[in-house]
């Protein structure tokens, strides 16, 4: 079956699928006419029950905390999978971290890039920390904060050399931080079992005023653990790919 044939078969099948898909989508209540009860119920009770003013984070870490636990383990497994798939093949060896592509003139990293990225490392760390610890008050959360924290490490690589990045995030330490973040989420759930409530119930003191940083019980704690876990997972993945690009060479070059 040649490629143009495959293209025509796809167009016919796509027309049929599109017809059914649009028929189903147009059967939904129109855009803006939200009918369902759950959104209104959660908006009405969330602030009173959890003292968290960020209702999306309350849904993520308390009302549907089990889904977040599963998603965090997806990220953990992806980091492990990338490290396993990108292991050394039989004929590869590590060399010095130089960019040896012969088809492009790789310029030396300019001073402007180095200075700007160096200046941005501090603010990025602060912003990432803020996002990871304020999940219950404003549009922040563990995931966003974690990815921003991981970006700070990549800025370290851009501002310096690969070896600095490797020294600031050794694989064993990052692995340990990743595991601690993922494990503490599960342990907090088990601790809720220890107090006689359901798994992942909110058992810490809820705080006096909704929206303060120390309010909302386990939501703040879980969000912080998720933040460091996501940061460690992304640093691991980026480190693996950087190592592939810069260090691992094939054969006897």
């Amino acid at each position, binding site marked *: 079956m040649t490629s143009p044939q495959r293209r025509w078969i796809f167009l016919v099948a796509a027309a049929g699928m599109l017809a059914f898909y649009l028929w189903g989508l147009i059967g939904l209540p129109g855009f803006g006419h939200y009918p369902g009860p759950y959104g209104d119920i959660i908006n009405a009770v969330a602030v009173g029950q959890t003292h968290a003013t960020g209702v999306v984070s309350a849904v993520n870490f308390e009302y549907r905390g089990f889904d977040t636990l599963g998603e965090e383990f997806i990220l953990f497994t992806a980091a492990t999978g990338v490290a396993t798939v990108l292991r050394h093949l039989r004929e590869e060896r590590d060399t010095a971290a130089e960019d040896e592509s012969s*088809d492009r003139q790789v310029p030396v990293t300019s001073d402007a890039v180095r200075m700007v990225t160096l200046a941005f490392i501090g603010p990025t760390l602060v912003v990432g920390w803020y996002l990871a610890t304020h999940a219950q008050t404003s*549009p922040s959360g563990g995931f*966003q904060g974690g*990815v921003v924290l991981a*970006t700070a490490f*990549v800025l370290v690589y851009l501002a310096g050399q690969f070896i600095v990045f490797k020294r600031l995030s050794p694989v064993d330490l990052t692995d340990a931080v990743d595991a601690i973040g993922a494990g503490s989420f599960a342990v907090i759930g088990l601790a809720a079992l220890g107090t006689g409530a359901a798994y992942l119930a909110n058992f810490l003191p809820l705080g006096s005023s909704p929206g303060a940083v120390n309010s909302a019980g386990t939501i703040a704690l879980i969000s912080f653990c998720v933040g460091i876990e996501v940061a460690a997972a992304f640093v691991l*993945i*980026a480190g693996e*790919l950087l190592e592939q*690009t810069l260090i691992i060479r094939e054969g006897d070059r």
Partner: protein
Amino acid sequence: MTAGALVISPYTVTPLWLMAALQVSVLILVAAGATAVVLARNPTRQVIMVSIYGVLLALLFMVFQAPDVTLSELTVGAVALPLLLLLALAKVRRNEE
């Protein structure tokens, strides 16, 4: 609240027609961005296009009143994913010599 009633509160400061116009225009931009990402055959150019598409999606989520999803899409779709893609492309290009 019946299905046909408009919901207006004292905190809705943007006029409804302006909100609808914003949403329609950003939706059109997102559809055009998706087409441009697919039609860019060179992988390096496609990575730049996917970064722009991530920013357009973040704009769409902002207009749909979802700031948390905006933050996630900005950090993941416009920074982390193009970084991983560029690293993989650099490795593949090195292997091709």
